[in-house]
Protein backbone atom coordinates (compact mmCIF):
# COMPACT_ATOMS: atom_id res chain seq x y z
CA UNK A 1 0.00 0.00 0.00
CA UNK A 2 2.97 2.28 0.57
CA UNK A 3 3.32 4.84 -2.18
CA UNK A 4 7.02 5.14 -3.09
CA UNK A 5 6.38 8.66 -4.40
CA UNK A 6 4.80 9.86 -1.15
CA UNK A 7 6.23 12.78 0.83
CA UNK A 8 4.09 11.83 3.81
CA UNK A 9 2.93 8.30 4.45
CA UNK A 10 0.73 7.65 7.49
CA UNK A 11 0.03 3.96 7.94
CA UNK A 12 -2.52 2.46 10.34
CA UNK A 13 -1.73 5.10 12.94
CA UNK A 14 -3.39 4.86 16.34
CA UNK A 15 -2.90 7.24 19.23
CA UNK A 16 -4.30 6.83 22.73
CA UNK A 17 -4.14 9.07 25.78
CA UNK A 18 -4.46 7.27 29.14
CA UNK A 19 -7.86 5.60 29.06
CA UNK A 20 -8.95 7.40 25.90
CA UNK A 21 -8.29 6.40 22.31
CA UNK A 22 -7.93 9.51 20.13
CA UNK A 23 -7.08 8.15 16.68
CA UNK A 24 -7.68 4.65 15.33
CA UNK A 25 -6.15 3.13 12.23
CA UNK A 26 -5.58 6.37 10.36
CA UNK A 27 -3.95 5.87 6.94
CA UNK A 28 -3.29 8.31 4.13
CA UNK A 29 -0.41 9.50 2.00
CA UNK A 30 0.44 12.77 0.31
CA UNK A 31 2.55 13.37 -2.78
CA UNK A 32 4.96 16.24 -3.43
CA UNK A 33 3.11 19.52 -3.97
CA UNK A 34 -0.19 18.14 -2.75
CA UNK A 35 -2.36 20.50 -0.69
CA UNK A 36 -4.36 18.58 1.88
CA UNK A 37 -7.00 19.85 4.28
CA UNK A 38 -7.28 18.09 7.64
CA UNK A 39 -10.91 18.72 8.47
CA UNK A 40 -12.80 17.91 11.64
CA UNK A 41 -14.65 19.53 14.51
CA UNK A 42 -12.93 20.74 17.67
CA UNK A 43 -11.66 17.77 19.68
CA UNK A 44 -11.69 15.39 16.71
CA UNK A 45 -7.92 14.78 16.99
CA UNK A 46 -6.53 17.15 14.35
CA UNK A 47 -3.88 18.59 16.64
CA UNK A 48 -3.00 15.13 17.96
CA UNK A 49 -2.54 13.81 14.41
CA UNK A 50 -0.26 16.73 13.50
CA UNK A 51 1.75 16.36 16.73
CA UNK A 52 2.15 12.63 16.08
CA UNK A 53 3.40 13.26 12.55
CA UNK A 54 5.87 15.76 14.06
CA UNK A 55 7.08 13.21 16.59
CA UNK A 56 5.89 15.25 19.59
CA UNK A 57 3.34 12.55 20.45
CA UNK A 58 4.15 8.84 20.44
CA UNK A 59 1.69 6.65 18.54
CA UNK A 60 0.33 3.49 20.17
CA UNK A 61 0.51 1.73 16.79
CA UNK A 62 1.35 2.44 13.18
CA UNK A 63 4.05 4.39 11.41
CA UNK A 64 4.69 7.83 9.98
CA UNK A 65 7.18 8.15 7.11
CA UNK A 66 8.37 11.37 5.57
CA UNK A 67 10.38 11.00 2.39
CA UNK A 68 10.88 7.38 3.49
CA UNK A 69 12.26 8.29 6.96
CA UNK A 70 10.33 7.16 10.02
CA UNK A 71 12.65 7.98 12.96
CA UNK A 72 14.02 11.26 14.28
CA UNK A 73 15.65 11.67 10.85
CA UNK A 74 12.33 12.94 9.50
CA UNK A 75 12.45 16.02 11.73
CA UNK A 76 14.50 18.13 9.35
CA UNK A 77 12.04 17.45 6.53
CA UNK A 78 9.11 19.14 8.26
CA UNK A 79 8.07 22.70 8.99
CA UNK A 80 5.42 23.41 11.61
CA UNK A 81 3.09 26.27 12.46
CA UNK A 82 1.41 25.53 15.81
CA UNK A 83 -2.12 26.41 16.78
CA UNK A 84 -3.15 29.82 18.12
CA UNK A 85 0.21 31.30 18.91
CA UNK A 86 -0.99 34.47 20.56
CA UNK A 87 1.71 36.99 21.32
CA UNK A 88 -0.44 39.08 23.63
CA UNK A 89 2.38 40.18 25.86
CA UNK A 90 5.21 42.38 24.71
CA UNK A 91 8.02 40.42 23.09
CA UNK A 92 11.40 42.02 22.43
CA UNK A 93 11.72 40.12 19.17
CA UNK A 94 11.44 41.49 15.65
CA UNK A 95 9.57 39.59 12.96
CA UNK A 96 12.92 38.93 11.22
CA UNK A 97 14.35 37.43 14.45
CA UNK A 98 11.49 34.92 14.53
CA UNK A 99 12.26 33.93 10.92
CA UNK A 100 15.98 33.60 11.73
CA UNK A 101 15.17 31.33 14.71
CA UNK A 102 13.62 28.99 12.16
CA UNK A 103 17.03 28.65 10.56
CA UNK A 104 19.28 28.06 13.58
CA UNK A 105 17.12 28.30 16.70
CA UNK A 106 18.21 24.87 17.90
CA UNK A 107 21.93 25.76 17.94
CA UNK A 108 23.82 26.53 21.13
CA UNK A 109 25.64 29.79 21.70
CA UNK A 110 24.91 33.37 20.74
CA UNK A 111 24.07 34.15 17.13
CA UNK A 112 26.23 36.56 15.20
CA UNK A 113 25.20 38.27 11.99
CA UNK A 114 26.43 36.54 8.86
CA UNK A 115 25.86 37.41 5.23
CA UNK A 116 24.45 33.98 4.37
CA UNK A 117 22.03 34.08 7.29
CA UNK A 118 20.85 37.60 6.46
CA UNK A 119 20.33 36.67 2.81
CA UNK A 120 18.29 33.56 3.64
CA UNK A 121 16.10 35.54 6.06
CA UNK A 122 15.60 38.31 3.46
CA UNK A 123 14.63 35.77 0.79
CA UNK A 124 12.10 34.17 3.09
CA UNK A 125 10.62 37.52 4.15
CA UNK A 126 10.23 38.36 0.47
CA UNK A 127 8.58 34.99 -0.26
CA UNK A 128 5.86 35.65 2.33
CA UNK A 129 5.68 39.36 1.42
CA UNK A 130 6.63 40.46 4.93
CA UNK A 131 9.48 42.88 4.25
CA UNK A 132 7.33 45.91 5.09
CA UNK A 133 6.92 44.83 8.72
CA UNK A 134 10.10 42.76 9.19
CA UNK A 135 11.57 45.17 11.74
CA UNK A 136 8.47 45.46 13.88
CA UNK A 137 8.10 43.44 17.02
CA UNK A 138 6.21 40.19 16.52
CA UNK A 139 3.80 41.12 19.32
CA UNK A 140 2.89 44.39 17.54
CA UNK A 141 1.78 42.64 14.32
CA UNK A 142 -1.77 41.72 13.29
CA UNK A 143 -2.91 38.08 13.36
CA UNK A 144 -2.43 37.65 9.60
CA UNK A 145 1.04 39.21 9.70
CA UNK A 146 2.07 36.95 12.59
CA UNK A 147 0.84 33.93 10.61
CA UNK A 148 3.00 34.99 7.61
CA UNK A 149 6.05 35.29 9.85
CA UNK A 150 5.40 31.87 11.40
CA UNK A 151 5.07 30.35 7.92
CA UNK A 152 8.40 31.95 6.98
CA UNK A 153 9.88 30.56 10.22
CA UNK A 154 8.68 27.07 9.27
CA UNK A 155 9.74 27.31 5.60
CA UNK A 156 13.23 28.80 5.90
CA UNK A 157 14.93 25.40 6.11
CA UNK A 158 13.13 24.34 2.94
CA UNK A 159 11.16 21.39 4.35
CA UNK A 160 9.37 18.93 2.07
CA UNK A 161 6.28 18.93 4.25
CA UNK A 162 4.59 21.91 5.93
CA UNK A 163 2.13 21.22 8.77
CA UNK A 164 -0.18 23.99 9.93
CA UNK A 165 -2.59 23.74 12.85
CA UNK A 166 -5.69 25.92 12.35
CA UNK A 167 -3.76 28.76 10.70
CA UNK A 168 -6.98 30.46 9.56
CA UNK A 169 -8.70 30.60 12.95
CA UNK A 170 -9.23 34.10 14.30
CA UNK A 171 -8.25 35.83 11.06
CA UNK A 172 -10.39 38.33 9.18
CA UNK A 173 -11.67 37.47 5.69
CA UNK A 174 -8.92 39.32 3.82
CA UNK A 175 -6.17 37.74 5.91
CA UNK A 176 -7.68 34.26 5.37
CA UNK A 177 -7.59 34.78 1.59
CA UNK A 178 -3.96 36.03 1.82
CA UNK A 179 -2.75 33.03 3.82
CA UNK A 180 -4.61 30.52 1.62
CA UNK A 181 -3.08 32.15 -1.47
CA UNK A 182 0.41 32.01 0.07
CA UNK A 183 0.09 28.32 1.00
CA UNK A 184 -1.25 27.50 -2.45
CA UNK A 185 1.78 29.24 -3.95
CA UNK A 186 4.20 27.15 -1.84
CA UNK A 187 2.44 23.92 -2.91
CA UNK A 188 2.16 24.79 -6.60
CA UNK A 189 5.34 26.72 -7.32
CA UNK A 190 7.73 25.13 -4.83
CA UNK A 191 6.30 21.61 -4.70
CA UNK A 192 5.91 21.70 -0.91
CA UNK A 193 3.43 19.17 0.46
CA UNK A 194 0.99 20.99 2.72
CA UNK A 195 -1.22 19.56 5.45
CA UNK A 196 -3.42 22.21 7.03
CA UNK A 197 -6.02 21.60 9.71
CA UNK A 198 -9.28 23.55 9.77
CA UNK A 199 -12.72 23.16 11.28
CA UNK A 200 -14.25 25.03 8.31
CA UNK A 201 -13.32 23.72 4.86
CA UNK A 202 -14.85 26.58 2.86
CA UNK A 203 -11.79 28.84 2.71
CA UNK A 204 -9.73 25.91 1.39
CA UNK A 205 -12.15 24.62 -1.23
CA UNK A 206 -10.48 26.34 -4.17
CA UNK A 207 -6.97 25.09 -3.40
CA UNK A 208 -7.31 21.73 -1.64
CA UNK A 209 -6.33 18.67 -3.69
CA UNK A 210 -7.22 16.21 -0.97
CA UNK A 211 -9.22 16.03 2.24
CA UNK A 212 -8.56 13.98 5.36
CA UNK A 213 -11.74 14.12 7.40
CA UNK A 214 -11.56 13.16 11.10
CA UNK A 215 -14.53 12.08 13.20
CA UNK A 216 -14.78 9.73 16.18
CA UNK A 217 -11.09 8.90 15.89
CA UNK A 218 -11.43 7.60 12.34
CA UNK A 219 -10.27 9.22 9.15
CA UNK A 220 -11.96 9.35 5.78
CA UNK A 221 -9.83 10.50 2.92
CA UNK A 222 -10.22 11.24 -0.73
CA UNK A 223 -9.67 13.77 -3.50
CA UNK A 224 -11.59 16.99 -2.90
CA UNK A 225 -14.04 16.39 -5.74
CA UNK A 226 -14.83 12.91 -4.36
CA UNK A 227 -15.47 14.16 -0.83
CA UNK A 228 -17.18 17.49 -1.44
CA UNK A 229 -20.54 16.05 -2.43
CA UNK A 230 -23.82 16.33 -0.61
CA UNK A 231 -24.20 12.61 0.11
CA UNK A 232 -20.57 12.06 1.20
CA UNK A 233 -20.36 15.11 3.47
CA UNK A 234 -23.81 14.49 4.96
CA UNK A 235 -22.71 10.97 5.90
CA UNK A 236 -19.40 12.19 7.37
CA UNK A 237 -20.93 15.03 9.40
CA UNK A 238 -24.00 13.01 10.39
CA UNK A 239 -26.02 16.07 9.43
CA UNK A 240 -27.46 17.27 6.13
CA UNK A 241 -24.87 19.25 4.21
CA UNK A 242 -25.55 21.05 0.96
CA UNK A 243 -22.87 21.39 -1.66
CA UNK A 244 -23.93 24.23 -3.87
CA UNK A 245 -22.37 24.79 -7.28
CA UNK A 246 -23.02 28.10 -8.90
CA UNK A 247 -21.23 29.03 -12.14
CA UNK A 248 -18.32 26.70 -11.35
CA UNK A 249 -18.08 27.93 -7.74
CA UNK A 250 -18.57 25.59 -4.79
CA UNK A 251 -20.05 26.37 -1.43
CA UNK A 252 -20.53 24.00 1.52
CA UNK A 253 -23.35 24.89 3.90
CA UNK A 254 -24.99 23.06 6.76
CA UNK A 255 -28.73 22.97 6.42
CA UNK A 256 -30.11 24.72 9.48
CA UNK A 257 -32.72 27.13 10.67
CA UNK A 258 -32.75 30.16 8.40
CA UNK A 259 -32.31 32.54 11.30
CA UNK A 260 -28.96 30.90 12.23
CA UNK A 261 -27.38 31.68 8.94
CA UNK A 262 -26.49 35.35 9.40
CA UNK A 263 -24.73 34.58 12.71
CA UNK A 264 -22.89 31.65 11.17
CA UNK A 265 -21.80 33.78 8.25
CA UNK A 266 -20.46 36.43 10.57
CA UNK A 267 -18.43 33.96 12.62
CA UNK A 268 -17.21 31.77 9.81
CA UNK A 269 -17.44 33.83 6.67
CA UNK A 270 -18.54 31.64 3.78
CA UNK A 271 -16.07 31.59 0.94
CA UNK A 272 -16.97 30.99 -2.64
CA UNK A 273 -14.01 29.58 -4.51
CA UNK A 274 -13.18 28.34 -7.95
CA UNK A 275 -12.57 24.63 -8.35
CA UNK A 276 -9.46 24.44 -10.50
Amino acid at each position, binding site marked *: MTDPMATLDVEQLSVAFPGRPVLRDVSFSLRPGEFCGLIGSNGSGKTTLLRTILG*LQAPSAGTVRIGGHSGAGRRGL*MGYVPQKIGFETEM*PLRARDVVALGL*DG*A*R*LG*LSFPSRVRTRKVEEMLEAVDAQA*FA*DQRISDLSGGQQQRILIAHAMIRRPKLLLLDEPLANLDVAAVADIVHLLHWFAHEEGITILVSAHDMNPLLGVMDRIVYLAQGRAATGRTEEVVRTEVLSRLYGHHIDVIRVHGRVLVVAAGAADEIPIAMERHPVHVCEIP
Partner: protein
Amino acid sequence: MTLFDAIVAPGFFANGPVQTALLVGGGAAVISAAIGVFTVIRGQSFAGHALADVSSAGGSLAFLVGFAPLWGFLGIAALAAMALEAVGLRRARERDLATGVVFGAGLGLTALLLHFAIATRSSSGAAISVMFGSIFAIPSGVVLPALAVGAGGLILLGAIWRPLLLASLHPDLAAARGIRVPLVGLLHLLVLSLAVTLSAMTVGAILSTALLVGPAAAAVRLTRSAGQAVLLAAGLGLVACWGGILLAYDSYGWTPGRPWPVSFFIVSLIFALYLLSGLRRPARLREA
Protein backbone atom coordinates in the same frame (compact mmCIF):
# COMPACT_ATOMS: atom_id res chain seq x y z
CA MET B 1 32.68 72.10 47.52
CA THR B 2 32.07 71.02 43.95
CA LEU B 3 28.90 69.48 42.63
CA PHE B 4 30.72 66.12 42.38
CA ASP B 5 31.59 66.29 46.08
CA ALA B 6 27.99 67.12 46.88
CA ILE B 7 26.77 64.00 45.11
CA VAL B 8 29.62 61.64 45.94
CA ALA B 9 30.47 62.03 49.59
CA PRO B 10 34.23 62.13 50.28
CA GLY B 11 35.88 58.76 50.71
CA PHE B 12 33.27 56.84 48.68
CA PHE B 13 35.61 55.17 46.23
CA ALA B 14 38.38 54.59 48.79
CA ASN B 15 36.05 52.77 51.17
CA GLY B 16 36.66 49.00 51.27
CA PRO B 17 33.08 47.88 51.98
CA VAL B 18 31.85 50.26 49.27
CA GLN B 19 34.21 48.73 46.71
CA THR B 20 32.99 45.25 47.63
CA ALA B 21 29.38 46.41 47.43
CA LEU B 22 29.90 47.98 44.00
CA LEU B 23 31.45 44.78 42.64
CA VAL B 24 29.04 42.24 44.12
CA GLY B 25 26.01 44.51 43.58
CA GLY B 26 27.06 45.23 40.00
CA GLY B 27 27.42 41.51 39.29
CA ALA B 28 24.04 40.82 40.84
CA ALA B 29 22.41 43.59 38.80
CA VAL B 30 23.85 42.40 35.49
CA ILE B 31 23.04 38.69 35.81
CA SER B 32 19.59 39.40 37.29
CA ALA B 33 18.69 41.82 34.51
CA ALA B 34 19.94 39.47 31.78
CA ILE B 35 18.07 36.36 32.89
CA GLY B 36 15.19 38.58 34.02
CA VAL B 37 14.42 39.42 30.39
CA PHE B 38 13.65 35.74 29.76
CA THR B 39 11.81 35.38 33.06
CA VAL B 40 9.57 38.29 32.04
CA ILE B 41 8.98 36.95 28.51
CA ARG B 42 8.12 33.51 29.89
CA GLY B 43 5.78 34.96 32.52
CA GLN B 44 7.71 33.28 35.32
CA SER B 45 8.41 36.25 37.58
CA PHE B 46 6.40 34.62 40.34
CA ALA B 47 8.69 31.58 40.15
CA GLY B 48 11.65 33.95 40.37
CA HIS B 49 10.21 35.52 43.49
CA ALA B 50 9.54 32.10 45.00
CA LEU B 51 13.11 30.94 44.31
CA ALA B 52 14.43 33.99 46.13
CA ASP B 53 12.16 33.48 49.11
CA VAL B 54 12.98 29.79 49.38
CA SER B 55 16.69 30.57 49.10
CA SER B 56 16.36 32.66 52.27
CA ALA B 57 16.19 29.32 54.11
CA GLY B 58 19.71 28.67 52.82
CA GLY B 59 20.86 32.11 53.95
CA SER B 60 19.45 31.51 57.42
CA LEU B 61 21.03 28.07 57.57
CA ALA B 62 24.36 29.71 56.79
CA PHE B 63 23.88 32.06 59.75
CA LEU B 64 22.93 29.18 62.03
CA VAL B 65 25.78 26.85 61.07
CA GLY B 66 28.25 29.60 60.33
CA PHE B 67 29.29 29.36 56.70
CA ALA B 68 29.24 31.97 53.94
CA PRO B 69 25.65 32.98 53.05
CA LEU B 70 26.62 32.83 49.34
CA TRP B 71 26.73 29.04 49.46
CA GLY B 72 23.59 28.78 51.57
CA PHE B 73 21.54 30.90 49.17
CA LEU B 74 23.04 29.14 46.14
CA GLY B 75 22.48 25.56 47.35
CA ILE B 76 18.86 26.03 48.33
CA ALA B 77 17.99 28.14 45.26
CA ALA B 78 19.41 25.51 42.90
CA LEU B 79 17.52 22.73 44.72
CA ALA B 80 14.30 24.76 44.55
CA ALA B 81 14.82 25.39 40.82
CA MET B 82 15.07 21.66 40.19
CA ALA B 83 12.01 21.00 42.35
CA LEU B 84 9.99 23.62 40.44
CA GLU B 85 10.87 22.09 37.09
CA ALA B 86 10.37 18.53 38.36
CA VAL B 87 6.81 19.38 39.39
CA GLY B 88 6.50 20.29 35.73
CA LEU B 89 2.96 21.59 35.82
CA ARG B 90 1.91 22.75 32.40
CA ARG B 91 -1.02 24.95 33.21
CA ALA B 92 -0.05 28.42 34.43
CA ARG B 93 -2.68 28.40 37.19
CA GLU B 94 -1.55 25.08 38.68
CA ARG B 95 2.05 26.21 38.40
CA ASP B 96 1.32 29.39 40.32
CA LEU B 97 -0.49 27.49 43.06
CA ALA B 98 2.30 24.93 43.46
CA THR B 99 4.89 27.71 43.45
CA GLY B 100 2.96 29.64 46.09
CA VAL B 101 2.66 26.64 48.38
CA VAL B 102 6.35 25.72 48.01
CA PHE B 103 7.63 29.21 48.71
CA GLY B 104 5.35 29.49 51.74
CA ALA B 105 6.95 26.32 53.10
CA GLY B 106 10.41 27.73 52.36
CA LEU B 107 9.71 30.93 54.29
CA GLY B 108 8.35 28.89 57.19
CA LEU B 109 11.63 26.99 57.32
CA THR B 110 13.46 30.33 57.23
CA ALA B 111 11.49 31.50 60.26
CA LEU B 112 12.51 28.40 62.19
CA LEU B 113 16.19 28.57 61.20
CA LEU B 114 16.37 32.29 62.03
CA HIS B 115 14.77 31.59 65.40
CA PHE B 116 17.53 29.10 66.23
CA ALA B 117 20.23 31.35 64.80
CA ILE B 118 19.16 34.28 66.98
CA ALA B 119 18.73 32.09 70.06
CA THR B 120 21.97 30.15 69.86
CA ARG B 121 24.41 32.53 68.15
CA SER B 122 22.86 35.79 69.34
CA SER B 123 23.10 37.13 65.78
CA SER B 124 20.10 39.40 66.07
CA GLY B 125 20.80 41.09 62.75
CA ALA B 126 20.39 37.81 60.88
CA ALA B 127 16.73 38.28 59.96
CA ILE B 128 17.22 41.79 58.55
CA SER B 129 20.37 40.66 56.77
CA VAL B 130 18.77 37.62 55.10
CA MET B 131 15.52 39.34 54.17
CA PHE B 132 16.70 42.82 53.24
CA GLY B 133 20.37 42.33 52.42
CA SER B 134 23.55 43.60 54.01
CA ILE B 135 25.61 44.76 51.11
CA PHE B 136 28.08 46.80 53.19
CA ALA B 137 28.79 43.80 55.43
CA ILE B 138 29.93 41.46 52.64
CA PRO B 139 33.46 40.23 53.41
CA SER B 140 35.89 41.14 50.64
CA GLY B 141 36.77 37.45 50.21
CA VAL B 142 33.32 36.86 48.75
CA VAL B 143 33.92 39.16 45.77
CA LEU B 144 35.70 36.60 43.63
CA PRO B 145 33.32 33.66 44.20
CA ALA B 146 30.34 35.99 43.74
CA LEU B 147 31.63 37.35 40.44
CA ALA B 148 32.44 33.78 39.34
CA VAL B 149 28.84 32.75 40.06
CA GLY B 150 27.59 35.73 38.02
CA ALA B 151 29.95 35.02 35.12
CA GLY B 152 28.97 31.34 35.17
CA GLY B 153 25.33 32.32 34.90
CA LEU B 154 26.02 34.64 31.96
CA ILE B 155 28.02 31.96 30.12
CA LEU B 156 25.26 29.40 30.63
CA LEU B 157 22.66 31.92 29.43
CA GLY B 158 24.74 32.64 26.33
CA ALA B 159 24.99 28.92 25.61
CA ILE B 160 21.24 28.28 25.69
CA TRP B 161 20.33 31.68 24.16
CA ARG B 162 18.64 30.54 20.94
CA PRO B 163 16.91 27.36 22.22
CA LEU B 164 15.63 29.36 25.21
CA LEU B 165 14.30 32.12 22.93
CA LEU B 166 12.57 29.58 20.70
CA ALA B 167 11.09 27.66 23.65
CA SER B 168 9.90 30.95 25.17
CA LEU B 169 8.23 31.88 21.88
CA HIS B 170 6.30 28.61 21.81
CA PRO B 171 7.30 25.27 23.41
CA ASP B 172 6.02 23.25 20.43
CA LEU B 173 8.10 25.28 17.95
CA ALA B 174 11.19 24.31 19.96
CA ALA B 175 10.13 20.69 20.48
CA ALA B 176 9.49 20.28 16.74
CA ARG B 177 13.13 21.20 16.19
CA GLY B 178 14.33 18.49 18.56
CA ILE B 179 15.04 20.87 21.44
CA ARG B 180 14.51 19.28 24.85
CA VAL B 181 12.13 21.92 26.18
CA PRO B 182 12.02 20.72 29.83
CA LEU B 183 15.83 20.74 29.97
CA VAL B 184 15.92 24.29 28.59
CA GLY B 185 13.31 25.28 31.21
CA LEU B 186 15.43 23.76 33.97
CA LEU B 187 18.58 25.56 32.78
CA HIS B 188 16.63 28.84 32.74
CA LEU B 189 15.63 28.26 36.37
CA LEU B 190 19.22 27.32 37.29
CA VAL B 191 20.60 30.57 35.85
CA LEU B 192 17.75 32.28 37.67
CA SER B 193 18.85 30.70 40.94
CA LEU B 194 22.42 31.99 40.41
CA ALA B 195 21.05 35.49 39.83
CA VAL B 196 18.75 35.28 42.82
CA THR B 197 21.65 34.18 45.04
CA LEU B 198 23.68 37.26 44.20
CA SER B 199 20.78 39.65 44.51
CA ALA B 200 19.71 38.08 47.82
CA MET B 201 23.10 39.13 49.18
CA THR B 202 22.71 42.60 47.68
CA VAL B 203 19.14 43.67 48.36
CA GLY B 204 17.97 40.66 50.38
CA ALA B 205 15.90 37.61 49.50
CA ILE B 206 12.55 39.40 49.62
CA LEU B 207 13.60 42.31 47.42
CA SER B 208 15.63 40.37 44.86
CA THR B 209 12.54 40.10 42.64
CA ALA B 210 12.85 43.85 42.10
CA LEU B 211 16.36 43.50 40.67
CA LEU B 212 15.24 40.51 38.57
CA VAL B 213 11.99 41.82 37.13
CA GLY B 214 12.17 45.64 37.30
CA PRO B 215 15.01 46.46 34.87
CA ALA B 216 13.96 43.58 32.58
CA ALA B 217 10.33 44.68 32.43
CA ALA B 218 11.37 48.24 31.59
CA ALA B 219 13.80 47.02 28.91
CA VAL B 220 11.23 44.68 27.33
CA ARG B 221 8.92 47.69 26.92
CA LEU B 222 11.55 49.75 25.16
CA THR B 223 13.41 47.38 22.84
CA ARG B 224 12.80 45.36 19.69
CA SER B 225 15.23 42.49 20.08
CA ALA B 226 16.26 40.19 22.91
CA GLY B 227 19.90 41.28 22.69
CA GLN B 228 18.97 44.93 23.02
CA ALA B 229 16.62 44.09 25.89
CA VAL B 230 19.37 42.28 27.84
CA LEU B 231 21.91 45.09 27.32
CA LEU B 232 19.42 47.80 28.32
CA ALA B 233 18.19 45.81 31.32
CA ALA B 234 21.78 45.29 32.49
CA GLY B 235 22.45 49.04 32.12
CA LEU B 236 19.32 49.99 34.06
CA GLY B 237 20.14 47.41 36.75
CA LEU B 238 23.66 48.86 37.16
CA VAL B 239 22.33 52.43 37.37
CA ALA B 240 19.84 51.44 40.06
CA CYS B 241 22.29 49.30 42.02
CA TRP B 242 25.26 51.68 41.97
CA GLY B 243 23.00 54.71 42.40
CA GLY B 244 21.43 53.05 45.43
CA ILE B 245 24.83 52.28 46.98
CA LEU B 246 25.92 55.89 46.45
CA LEU B 247 22.75 57.32 48.01
CA ALA B 248 23.01 54.95 50.98
CA TYR B 249 26.62 56.06 51.51
CA ASP B 250 25.54 59.70 51.30
CA SER B 251 22.76 59.03 53.80
CA TYR B 252 25.37 58.56 56.56
CA GLY B 253 25.42 62.35 56.64
CA TRP B 254 21.66 62.88 56.53
CA THR B 255 20.76 61.25 59.85
CA PRO B 256 24.16 61.04 61.54
CA GLY B 257 25.11 57.55 62.63
CA ARG B 258 21.94 55.99 61.25
CA PRO B 259 22.36 55.43 57.49
CA TRP B 260 19.32 54.43 55.43
CA PRO B 261 19.16 50.88 54.04
CA VAL B 262 20.73 50.35 50.60
CA SER B 263 17.84 48.08 49.54
CA PHE B 264 15.42 50.96 49.89
CA PHE B 265 17.40 53.13 47.50
CA ILE B 266 18.03 50.40 44.91
CA VAL B 267 14.42 49.25 44.81
CA SER B 268 13.12 52.84 44.68
CA LEU B 269 15.42 53.67 41.77
CA ILE B 270 14.23 50.54 39.91
CA PHE B 271 10.64 51.56 40.52
CA ALA B 272 11.34 55.07 39.18
CA LEU B 273 13.06 53.65 36.06
CA TYR B 274 10.13 51.31 35.44
CA LEU B 275 7.66 54.20 35.67
CA LEU B 276 9.82 56.28 33.31
CA SER B 277 9.92 53.42 30.78
CA GLY B 278 6.14 53.68 30.49
CA LEU B 279 6.45 57.22 29.18
CA ARG B 280 8.47 56.41 26.13
CA ARG B 281 7.49 53.35 24.14
CA PRO B 282 8.56 52.43 20.63
CA ALA B 283 6.21 53.68 17.95
CA ARG B 284 3.71 50.95 17.27
CA LEU B 285 3.25 51.03 13.53
CA ARG B 286 -0.30 50.78 12.30
CA GLU B 287 -1.60 47.31 11.59
CA ALA B 288 -2.35 46.30 8.06
